[in-house]
């Protein structure tokens, strides 16, 4: 991937990620998150992971965030914008974030592989990258059982949501 594009999309992604938290308006936050997802998808494209990039946009930007926006618009927006800053909460949050960052730096710094770059990945000669096929083959051969277990889990969650929402309607 071209380093200029990598830095461009990384900076955009992180910037909009900060905007998600910093914005007082929930719709602005949600839209920032959408842009952040798009930049992440662009990073995936730069890694030739077209399948992952499309899925990122289809699932997160196209489905999850549309639902978020839908709900945010139905709720009262003013409450969030009027709320006062809680100084104690800001201090506590900053402390936790700093502690996490320090720990991350410590772990990454002590890791022996961290001081040399990864070897470049090379495809077998004469083989073009079909990431879609690779993902499918791995999912349905090596990881069949976890895949099906996740399917059942999601089904349980779906049924749970339906049961709970029906109960509230009565």
């Amino acid at each position, binding site marked *: 991937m071209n380093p200029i594009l990598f830095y461009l999309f990384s900076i955009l992604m992180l910037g909009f990620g900060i905007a998600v938290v910093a914005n007082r308006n929930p719709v602005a936050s949600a839209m920032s998150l959408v842009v952040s997802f798009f930049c992440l998808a662009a990073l995936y494209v730069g890694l030739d992971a077209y399948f992952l990039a499309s899925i990122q946009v289809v699932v997160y930007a*196209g*489905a999850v965030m549309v639902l978020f926006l*839908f709900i945010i618009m139905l709720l009262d927006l003013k409450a969030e914008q009027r709320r006062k800053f809680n100084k104690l909460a800001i201090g506590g949050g900053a402390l936790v974030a700093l502690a996490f960052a320090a720990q991350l730096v410590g772990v990454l710094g002590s890791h022996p592989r961290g001081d040399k770059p990864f070897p470049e990945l090379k495809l077998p000669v004469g083989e073009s990258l079909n990431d879609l096929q690779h993902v499918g083959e791995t999912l349905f051969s090596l990881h069949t059982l976890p895949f099906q277990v996740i399917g059942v889990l999601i089904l349980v969650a779906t049924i749970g949501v339906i049961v709970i929402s029906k109960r509230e309607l009565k």
Partner: protein
Amino acid sequence: MTTLAFFDSIPWEMILWAAGKSLFVIFGVVLPLVSYTVYAERRVSAAIQDRVGPNRTGFPTTLLGFKKDLQLFLGGLGQPIADAMKFILKEDFTPAGVKHFYFWLAPCLAMLPLVSLAFIPFGSSLFGEKMVIANVNVGVLGIFAVTGCSVYAIVLAGWASNSKYPFLGGIRSSSQMIAYELSMGLSIIPVLMLFGSMNLSDLVQYQADNGWLLLPLWGNGLSTERWLMLIPLTISFIIFMIAVFAETNRLPFDMPESETELVAGYHTEYGSMKFALFFLGEYAAMIVGSALMVVFFFGGWHIPLIPDGNGVGGLSFLHALPDWVWGIVNITAFFGKVAVILVFFIWVRWTLPRFRFDQLMKLGWLYLFEIALANIFLAAAVLAFTSN
């Protein structure tokens, strides 16, 4: 990296081809096609309602003192140009109380459907270059990604207008689009199961060699497998078509802007060029939907007995002409097929009455979704049965 090495590392030829193809498709084909679809809509609706429609607009030579406007060869073909001029010259009015940033952002996002044209192969090849902008392995998913995001324009327009009817239109649209996106995605799966790849160029090439998916009359298409697959594929086609109608907000499903209930729905508060962008976006989405139907079910750029742009296939005496002639014929064939489906879209709009919103939701969630899901199992059964 030195500056020179950096410039050498950029694939200039690929960038130029991609930019050239994008510019050709968007400004040379799709935007004219959009304007003339609007014109066709007015003429076809007029014909259906026993009126004449716009048949007079030509070059305005009356402005220069002549007695009559100079007519183009069919009469009225200058109408889209006049429409565009009107939209550009109108006052760009922004109502008070709107959320300015999103009010401006929404019409820009309305042009998003044009992005999905990048994945659609609009011709075989011309001078050895494949006539598709982004020839990627995940073409189908890419198109669904763009379609899924096109709902933002309508939702944001409805919300940013800060007005009741646009808001209702936006809310309706988001629930409608989420409902029909599922059926749309699931209905395509039998096609992908038969073909085994998501690359749209390869899909069209396969149909050129082995018969269109809905017209398996040559090559591998004469096998029992393909003829049995016609059953699930026809169901797929019908569901896909209905879902495209719903996704593009066309009548019978134009809930987000149903004039009799919501004034004009999400674009009530918009005027001049901002309204025109919504209008263009809707027609661009229609063109993308039609192009998808052509690519999936009607063989894309292929016409039987006509060779492709590499001089492969077709009747042997046609090879006397240079290959690029057939490349251009293929591109024309593709947009011709798209135009036929567009006329069908228009015809349906002026024939069927509008659904009620609860009927629309019921149709989407209770019927189309289930049928599409069952159809996948039917297709799997057919494939398993014929492979033995």
